[in-house]
């Protein structure tokens, strides 16, 4: 690895971190404005034009809040938990290609940080590591509501991870690769996998909301029953870090969903004009994020037993059946059984 490669990796990592943190800040603004609009309110509009400086004001406010550690808390884990919630979410974005290659300073630079043939496994692994932040926060706070929130989070993640993995697997079988770059390339010419795998897309859509603990799957922090669930005892910037983790996870998982099912950065003329590819990617990403917000404003929270029922008795069998059907179709395609493909 030469110096130039090293510089390229460092610059890309910094850009990803910067973009995700900015994205997080403006996602809070976006969510509040959109929900307000859906509920016939105005939303934050005082700080800056259309309230655009609101995230900045919130950040300053949170930084000056008193930072409380409960006396009976497990101090080390209490401090560690918010970090564990954020870091895997940031790392997950490394595998998402946001555009075709561009040529800068005479170097061809692909617009993704890492292209590995295990990218999707890496993504699923990080997703499951993210649970630790929530579970540890719940346990270390030494608070019964927090503990219940943490327990719910761990049970929920385990229940939906399998169905998500199987939904991803159907796409992997079609593309023949675990790399998101290859999967996006396999969707060239408008053959988006949402058309070939509508069932897998719906399963992924449900599980991605459950994995990010968003409404209507926000049982770990159900405020009517558990005060604030796993982050009941947290205040100030540590409290903000949990939101950072949640919103960055939303952005990252949306990026993966766009690459898996909506053709990633692909679109008309994207290969000739790389900036168009980035634009297409961004538009599709925002569509997913809007969907997250829209759901939160629309649906009531699921009851806990319904959540488990949906995960284990509906989504898991459905995704298994989908994998079997996809496998048969792939074998038929590769052996020319139908003579259609």
């Amino acid at each position, binding site marked *: 690895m030469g110096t130039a490669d090293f510089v390229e990796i460092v610059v890309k990592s910094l850009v990803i971190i910067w973009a995700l943190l900015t994205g997080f800040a403006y996602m809070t603004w976006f969510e509040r404005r959109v929900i307000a609009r859906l509920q016939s309110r105005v939303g934050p509009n005082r700080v800056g034009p259309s309230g655009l400086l609101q995230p900045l004001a919130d950040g300053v406010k949170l930084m000056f809040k008193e930072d409380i550690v409960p006396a009976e808390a497990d101090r080390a*884990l209490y401090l560690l938990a918010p970090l564990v919630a954020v870091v895997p979410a940031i790392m997950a974005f490394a595998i998402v290609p946001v555009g075709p290659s561009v040529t800068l300073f005479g170097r061809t630079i692909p617009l993704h940080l890492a292209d*590995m043939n*295990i990218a999707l496994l890496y993504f699923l692994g990080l997703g499951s*590591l993210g649970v*630790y932040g929530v579970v540890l926060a719940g*346990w270390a706070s030494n608070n019964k509501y927090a503990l219940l929130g943490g327990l719910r989070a761990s*049970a929920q993640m*385990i229940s939906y991870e399998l169905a998500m993995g199987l939904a991803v697997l159907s796409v992997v079988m079609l593309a023949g690769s675990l790399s998101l770059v290859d999967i996006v390339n396999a969707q060239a010419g408008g053959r988006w996998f949402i058309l070939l795998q509508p069932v897998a897309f719906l399963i992924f859509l449900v599980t991605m909301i459950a994995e990010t603990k968003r409404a209507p799957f926000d049982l770990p922090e159900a405020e009517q029953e558990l005060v604030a669930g796993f982050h009941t005892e947290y205040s100030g910037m540590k409290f903000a870090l949990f939101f950072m983790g949640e919103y960055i996870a939303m952005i990252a998982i949306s990026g993966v969903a766009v690459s898996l099912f909506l053709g990633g950065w692909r679109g008309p003329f994207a290969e000739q004009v790389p900036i168009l590819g980035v634009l297409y990617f961004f538009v599709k990403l925002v569509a997913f994020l809007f969907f997250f917000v829209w759901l939160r404003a629309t649906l009531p929270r699921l009851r806990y037993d319904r959540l488990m029922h949906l995960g284990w008795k509906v989504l898991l069998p459905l995704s298994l059946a989908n994998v079997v059907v996809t496998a048969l179709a792939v074998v038929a395609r590769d052996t020319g059984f139908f003579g259609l493909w």
Partner: protein
Amino acid sequence: MSAQFVIFGLLAVTSVATALAMIFSRNAVHGVLFMVGNFAAVALLYVLLGSPFLAAVQILVYAGAIMVLFLFVVMLMGPEPAPLWEHIPGQRPLALLFGLLLAAGLIAAVNVEELTGVPGIMSQEVLERLGQPTALAQTLFERYLLPFEVTSLLLLIGMIGAVVLAKREKHELQAERAPREGGAE
């Protein structure tokens, strides 16, 4: 001293240290976390050996799924002081014996060329090829299909056994529920 050697040293020390910390920690939740740290260090060792696939599976299956379940159980049970020694007759000498056998086997496997003069099958090229998902899949699903399926059957039997053990008969549940329902409600 190459960078790879330094990284290996750091990871090796971390994995041994977290394993020891896991055994000696008094708090079960801390123990679980040290074990997760151990899995992470071992996964990075796999990356160093040119097998990112194994590393990802290690994180995904062990750190991401199994240990989350462990944590779930430990948190549900609460801080229960476990007995320090479990007495199964002859457990300790047998454990020592099998531990030594395992260590001897591992040392022989790693140093097979120095011990016998015959090069082992795990050359650098073989390792790099095996690190790829496709090569691993071919090994599992073609060459070792039967053992692979038998293993999965074994796991299934274990799972059914757990369900049978945990399942309580209807009349047992009713007997337990009856006094509670007749109480404060």
